[in-house]
């Protein structure tokens, strides 16, 4: 939990469940003592019973007890008594007016004011916080790709940054670029390239994000998990696009431990614009995965099919029961959703993720769904064959052009 959030959480709990009950307890103890009631018991009831029910009961029950006290020994007296049973002092008529009651009612008035005002202020504070938190901030990961260094050979900004990073030795380097805010001010796109120099084993790379909270800025976390295998056929560079209403705070983790990194910021665009319109069969085929549970692999494949260019999206993996499903949920889109044909992208996903049963693409209330069976019927062959042979995938792409 964030430190400020934790502090506020425990402060509010402290006020509601310690400060107010203690205040009530002190009042009840004094009042019950004056009235000759069992002060300890009533204090415990008033303090421990939830939502002031103990205090309400005490206020009702105490009406049966007088506040008359012996002027000599302070023993609580009944109005009808003439002599104090404790010290034998004759009770003067004048004291039955109960001199202390006015002061005690003032104390109770203050307590009632406090128990109304304190929670009221906390409610207002929480409503303001909740309103700000829910309405003004968001963040979403647009796409995450593992890229070979050669893919950036034509980008001078990236190659210069890589040269500088190489000169500095092993470590994690980040190149960041912030695009101008969109015309409708719906958010800003942040692009990052992460370079881990000195990588000697295969790694799994995943990215998490956290939207801006009441006490925190939005955060982007890139997590490297060493797989332990020596062969390093996977990419050293990872490019990430992030859409947010405020600049995210970056954090890099290696095997669960937060590590330092060196960040460079540039005004020049740094990411390649994705894939050619008719997807590169070789790259698509290389991106194929066995299991839907491979989160980063799924995101890489979504990008390879071109679906990441449709708009900002999040994914949900439906893997609790078969058939396994992939839901792509767009929060914004750049195309007219209703007239966009997603069938070729969905067929590619169904063919290249071996255990994927259906694809569901959603924007607002509109949803496009395609199952493996439906895709096979469209193709006239088993859609999974696309993931078995690159030639088959090539053939499919040619048929699309035709």
């Amino acid at each position, binding site marked *: 939990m964030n430190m400020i959030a934790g502090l506020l959480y425990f402060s509010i709990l402290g006020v509601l469940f310690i400060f107010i009950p203690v205040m009530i307890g002190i009042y009840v103890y004094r009042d019950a003592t004056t009235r000759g009631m069992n002060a300890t018991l009533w204090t415990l009831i008033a303090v421990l019973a939830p939502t*002031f029910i103990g205090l309400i009961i005490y206020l009702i029950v105490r009406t049966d007890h007088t506040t008359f006290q012996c002027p000599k020994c302070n023993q609580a007296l009944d109005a009808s008594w003439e002599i104090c049973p404790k010290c034998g002092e004759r009770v003067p008529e004048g004291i039955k007016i109960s001199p202390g009651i006015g002061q005690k009612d003032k104390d109770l008035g203050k307590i009632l004011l406090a128990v109304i005002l304190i929670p009221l202020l906390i409610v207002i504070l929480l409503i303001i916080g909740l309103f700000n938190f829910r309405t003004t901030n968001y963040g979403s990961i647009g796409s995450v790709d593992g890229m070979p260094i050669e893919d950036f050979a034509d980008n001078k900004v990236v190659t210069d940054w890589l040269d500088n990073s190489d000169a500095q030795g092993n470590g994690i380097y980040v190149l960041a670029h912030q695009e101008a805010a969109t015309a409708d001010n719906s958010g800003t796109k942040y692009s990052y390239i992460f370079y881990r120099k000195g990588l000697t084993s295969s790694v799994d790379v995943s990215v998490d994000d956290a939207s801006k909270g009441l006490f925190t800025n939005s955060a982007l976390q890139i997590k490297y998990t060493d797989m332990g295998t020596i062969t390093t056929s996977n990419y050293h560079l990872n490019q990430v696009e992030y859409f947010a209403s405020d600049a995210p705070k970056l954090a890099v983790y290696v095997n669960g431990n937060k590590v330092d990194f060196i960040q460079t910021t540039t005004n020049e665009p740094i990411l390649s614009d994705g894939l050619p319109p008719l997807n590169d069969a070789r790259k698509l085929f290389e991106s194929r995965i066995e299991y839907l549970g491979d989160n980063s692999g799924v995101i890489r494949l979504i990008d390879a099919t071109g679906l990441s260019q449709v708009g900002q999206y999040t994914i949900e993996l439906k893997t609790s029961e078969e058939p396994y499903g992939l839901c792509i949920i767009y929060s914004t889109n750049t195309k007219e959703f209703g007239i966009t044909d997603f069938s070729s992208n969905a067929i590619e996903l169904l063919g290249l993720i071996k255990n994927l049963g259906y694809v569901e693409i959603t924007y607002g209330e509109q949803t496009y769904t395609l199952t493996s069976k439906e895709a096979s019927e469209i193709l006239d062959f088993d859609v999974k064959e696309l993931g078995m042979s690159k030639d088959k995938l090539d053939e499919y792409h040619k048929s699309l052009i035709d």
Partner: protein
Amino acid sequence: MKLNYDFESYQPPRMNEKNLMETLHNRQLIKRTVLLVLASLLINICMALMAFVIAPYSMEAGIACLVLLGLSLAGSGIIAVIFAREWSTHYRSKPGSIIALGL
């Protein structure tokens, strides 16, 4: 002149300081009870709101708030029902029994 009390036919109620003080105390008690119920409602709203505010930072803390809210509602409800039943059937009809119980 239309009178709302027929002093010719009925004896007016005898009022003394004790009766007036009792009326005053009853009215005060009602006001205080209403204020305390309002305060308890605000505290319950606090807990519910806090659960939603804190949940993104710690789901456990959010759930703890909701559990606390549920328990306090259930607990105060049970106590209120038991007290109302016992107070009306026993203690109210037998003044002094509270003292006899040591309360």
